[in-house]
């Protein structure tokens, strides 16, 4: 018990220092997104601090997933979708025509709501990305990437004896960690997570949350979640969206204890609408 308290205390102090020292990995400047004639996002200014977890919260249809998907141009795949304003990654405009979208998505990886492993072996699921991006020079190197990615996703110990079994044969929680391993395998800088735990049971959720906590040592993470408690547990910065607007953004602890905006307060306490 004592140990835990000390550990969390150290972490809290560390978080505070991070908050001061951290620079912004990505910056959104007056980001608006249109689906055809319908505007889904209105002039959102939101910065994503490096090596921290930023949570996007808000009721369904508030634009949080839209914003998340615009961070690695996943919206490009949607017919009639238009993004205005500017989003930068390390100061570089990601909507610049010169940007290679495939390379961008390798740098800004994504994990989806439903675990969606390829219908291939566990090994191939993780090896696929590094292979097409040419990240491994030899079979041996590829093996190493697969193992280290699975380890970092806290899955290796559970699957090491059946790497060549189908990825789809794993449990839901394991599949989601496999998808995280797959995202990590291409050495991204930012990982976007769209409700990564909504299809998982509490134990699998806890494992993914523990994983998120470890991953933020090395990666910048943006997570969309409908679970307020989850946002409060895993993130250091929280942004609240409503009807396509960014309502409030601040340190997570403040957002869940003393939010400034009434809409945030109403949403997190379950008083909406």
């Amino acid at each position, binding site marked *: 018990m004592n140990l835990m308290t000390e550990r969390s205390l150290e972490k809290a102090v560390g978080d505070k220092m991070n908050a001061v020292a951290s620079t912004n990995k990505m910056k959104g400047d007056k980001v608006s997104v249109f689906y055809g004639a319908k505007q889904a996002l209105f002039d959102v200014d939101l910065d994503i601090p490096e090596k921290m977890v930023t949570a996007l919260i808000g009721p369904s249809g508030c634009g949080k997933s839209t914003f998340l998907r615009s961070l690695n141009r996943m919206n490009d795949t949607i017919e009639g979708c238009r993004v205005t304003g500017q989003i930068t990654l390390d100061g570089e405009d990601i909507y610049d025509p010169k940007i290679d979208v495939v390379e961008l998505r390798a740098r800004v990886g994504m994990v989806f709501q439903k675990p969606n492993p390829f219908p291939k072996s566990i090994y191939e699921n993780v090896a696929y990305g590094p292979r097409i991006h040419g990240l491994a020079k030899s079979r041996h190197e590829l093996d190493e990437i697969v193992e280290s990615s699975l380890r970092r996703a806290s899955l290796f110990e559970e699957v090491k004896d059946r790497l060549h079994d189908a990825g789809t044969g794993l449990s839901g929680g394991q599949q989601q960690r496999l998808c995280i391993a797959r995202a990590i395998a291409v050495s991204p800088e930012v990982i976007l997570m769209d409700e990564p735990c909504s299809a998982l049971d509490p134990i699998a959720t806890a494992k993914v949350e523990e994983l998120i906590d470890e991953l933020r040592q090395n990666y910048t993470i943006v997570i969309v979640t409908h679970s307020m408690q989850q946002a409060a547990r895993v993130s250091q910065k929280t942004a609240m969206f409503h009807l396509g607007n960014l309502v409030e953004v601040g340190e997570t602890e403040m957002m*869940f204890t*003393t939010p400034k905006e009434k809409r945030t*307060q109403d949403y*997190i*306490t*379950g*008083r909406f609408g």
Partner: protein
Amino acid sequence: MQSQHTVRSYDDELKFLAHKIAEMGGHAERMVEQSVTAIVNADKALAQRVISDDLILDACEREIDDRAIAIIAKRQPMAVDLREIIGSIRISADLERVGDLGKNIAKRVAAISETRQSLNVYRGLQTLAELALTQLKDVLDAFATRSIEQINIVRDRDDEIDAMYTSLFRELLTYMMEDPRNISACTHLLFCAKNIERIGDHATNIAETVYYIVTGQQMPPDRPKEDLSHGIVVDEARQA
């Protein structure tokens, strides 16, 4: 006031806590009031009633604790709701202590009734109790209405209570020096006065809790406040 929760039974649960606190508050006030009346009128039967009434207050505190824990487990409250629930636990603990102090005063009625003291002493004790009870009533009103405009006045008035207590302390000391036969009754009265002064402190605690519930901030620290009786010695009392 806050708008309603989407889940209405959540509102009912929070309302239950607020009602229970109001009930406890009324009960604690009555106990203190009656205990002082019992001293002034040397009414041992009334004192006995106050003593047995304390059980009700203890039961209320336990019920609030149980309900609050159940709400936390069930609803995972956030922000103002969480503060309100934690605040209820704290306030009920303060009120339970106020009840204990009332009981404590009532227990001394028998010993004090052995001799009669000057009317001044009883009047002083009554005034002190009135001050403390007004204080308690005001903070409970502040809790019921979630308004913090009056909170600072409560803190100022606690200084009045402390000053009143200090002067009562001097007075009792003087009576004891005048006639040693007064010593046992006056010592008991001294404890009664101290108990009432403590009630003022609990009211101040409640004020701070209400401020926290409403604003989410801790009440800014105040100038140091305390009664000055700890410095009084007999010589000084004689001069007074």
